[in-house]
């Protein structure tokens, strides 16, 4: 790489998306450095139980890709920061009766926080990741966050926490391609991970088992208690509030003439509330800790498509800002699975306007 080329740090995971992203940047002539974050280790004392991310195998894969691409590769330890800013809040949220999405916190504090700082300290102009999303600079200089080109892989939901400052310093090379195209690019570059399967589990959970994780790290966060209906009549016993999510029907251990769904919880009373399908529907939510990608809320109510989970479909709604970090969302039609703790993310077409955390609803 020539001395004059622009330096980019790529966050590498050993997977196909970040590997192809690194390859694309090398092809475009950037001075590329691969970094892998060591985020979490859970040891059973004999080298057993590994989380999905930053295992020795993932590290070896990323290293092999970096060698193939001829770029330097380093592992940076971020375990302390990750625990404090992602894992602890994840545990706390469950304990508070919420269903958190830790990926947003991780992007906010780790990837586009601590790692971006690392990249800058290494004189990099940009930090790149393998996310399926796009960044566009409009004529007035402002940055927009766009959905990835591949609608099936779009990851803008977990990037809705990004600020103008971060967008100015980040590249998403994979966002302009479909997943299949990215695999082809990886194959064409001779990367051995081109056909590696992907996992949807949370990266720090072994086997995606969040119940086991909570039992190990927050013993006492799951205490059995009563299951009641919306009239307050006791119907059964739950195994611990963190084990349930709004809209859940299976696994309640109840027999009733009509199907019953989880509709909420009274955390203070450690009580799970269930009800019939028609009780479940709600057509409004309040989002807090809202990030507006543009840097400020819109002047008044806006029409938007709103996603209430990573893999949910967009639902038409009116989003009304209430101060800088709160928004009230009124859906055109009721939804059955509005889940406190998950993110509500607002879109206009391909443009991600921002999003916030769904607040607990008044009982």
């Amino acid at each position, binding site marked *: 790489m020539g001395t004059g080329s622009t330096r980019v740090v790529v966050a590498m995971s050993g997977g196909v998306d970040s590997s192809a992203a690194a390859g694309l940047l090398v092809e475009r002539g950037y001075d590329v450095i691969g970094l892998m974050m060591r985020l979490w280790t859970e040891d059973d004392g004999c080298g057993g139980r590994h989380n999905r991310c930053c295992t020795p195998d993932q590290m070896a894969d990323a290293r092999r890709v970096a060698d193939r691409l001829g770029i330097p590769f380093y*592992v940076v*330890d971020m375990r302390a920061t990750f625990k404090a800013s992602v894992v602890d809040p994840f545990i706390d949220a469950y304990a508070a009766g919420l269903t958190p999405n830790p990926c947003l916190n991780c992007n906010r504090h780790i990837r586009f926080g601590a790692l971006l700082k690392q990249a800058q300290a290494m004189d990099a102009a940009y930090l790149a990741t393998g996310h399926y999303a796009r960044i566009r600079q409009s004529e007035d200089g402002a940055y927009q966050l766009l959905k990835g080109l591949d609608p099936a892989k779009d990851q803008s939901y977990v990037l809705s926490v990004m600020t103008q400052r971060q967008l100015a310093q980040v590249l998403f090379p994979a966002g302009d391609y479909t997943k299949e195209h990215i695999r082809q690019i990886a194959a064409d570059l001779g990367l051995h991970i081109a056909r590696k399967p992907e996992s949807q589990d949370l990266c720090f959970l072994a086997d995606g088992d969040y119940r086991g994780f909570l039992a190990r790290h927050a013993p006492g966060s799951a205490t059995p208690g009563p299951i009641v209906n919306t009239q307050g009549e006791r119907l059964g016993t739950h195994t611990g509030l963190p084990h349930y999510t709004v809209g859940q029907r299976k696994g309640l251990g109840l027999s009733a003439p009509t199907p019953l769904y989880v509709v909420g919880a009274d955390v203070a009373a450690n009580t799970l509330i269930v009800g019939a399908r028609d009780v479940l529907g709600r057509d409004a939510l309040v989002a807090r800790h809202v990030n507006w990608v543009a840097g400020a809320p819109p002047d008044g109510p806006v029409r938007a498509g709103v996603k209430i989970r990573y893999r949910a479909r967009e639902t038409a709604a009116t989003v009304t800002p209430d101060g800088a970090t709160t928004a009230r969302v009124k859906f055109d039609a009721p939804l059955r699975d509005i889940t406190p703790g998950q993110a509500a993310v607002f879109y206009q077409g391909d443009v991600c306007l921002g999003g916030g955390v769904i607040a607990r609803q008044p009982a």
Partner: protein
Amino acid sequence: MAGNGQSIYMDYAATTPVDPRVVEAMMPYFTERFGNPSSIHTFGREASRAVQAARETVAGILNCKPGEIVFTSCGTESDNLALRGATLENGRRHIVTSPVEHHAVSRTAEILHAHLGYGLTVVPVDAYGMVDPADVADALRDDTALVSIMYANNEVGTIQPIAEIAAVAHARGARFHTDAVQAAGQLPLDVAALGVDMLAISAHKFYGPKGVGALYVREGVRLVPSQSGGGQEGGRRGGTTNVALIVGLAKALEIAYAEREAHVARYRQLRDRLIEGVRARVPDAQLTGHPEQRLPNSASFALRGVDGNALLMHLDLKGIAASSGSACLVGTPEPSEVLMAMGLPPAWALGGLRLTVGRHTTDAEVDAVLDVLSDAVARVRALAAA
């Protein structure tokens, strides 16, 4: 290499390039002289002669008998053979070692302690990482089988008073082993003068190949082999004799000790230039290890508030190969056990930096490292503070 394309190797304590004369000496034993020294026939005898010549060369430098040299696969194997072999053979049930040993010694001692019930005493070190022979004397018991203290420390370069410690051990009837892996090539290896019963070396530290080491075992010291098998190496180490690498070890050791004085004088000069430069230009850096009793090629420092691994990454981006001094897992910042044993607080013990010079190091390289280092340290500190 990123950056301006320079590439400076300052990690000769990790390993060294093989001397071309050593490569040349080994080559025939990979191809035309491929015989197995255990065979009766001409091919076998030819290989056997080469191994015997190598044994005599090594014995000449160590001032011992050829039969007292056991060839192994590396320094770690030599240490394992010394610790396991000498304690298992012995009726005594106690081991004495130090907190600054290489893991090849410390982990092996811990396994003997945890799984086979041997008593284990770890004597303290002072702020320079030095063992006091009087502490060893206090630790000795009537049933002490073995004392194992390294000759020179790999992380901070401190040279231990081996001869005195050996005498103390012998006074109570205990065996004395020293891990001389880091010392070999730079310090005298005269086992009679040192008074040791066992001494471990590894070829790749003195411009020989990786994959071969040796253990000196004083005549009369019985060993249970830690790798049992055929009768090779006098029954003390089973496994087909690695002729080419053994020839390489002997040749490398021969060259290292023929040229030692000249090299060592040059190393000292380069090392002191590094130490003075770091003192003058890097704030909150302190020399670790003994100021005088230290390896000629080793400059090691503790840097307050610096993650040693992050620093190494920044140096590598500038084309400089250095070490944090510990054999830690990549990307895992744990405070150095050696620096902690020397009483450094964790804020300093995370920031180990070891710069080790060698035959190919130049003054210009030392200056280039010093030019880059203060900036790299400032960046890593700024990142930690952010």
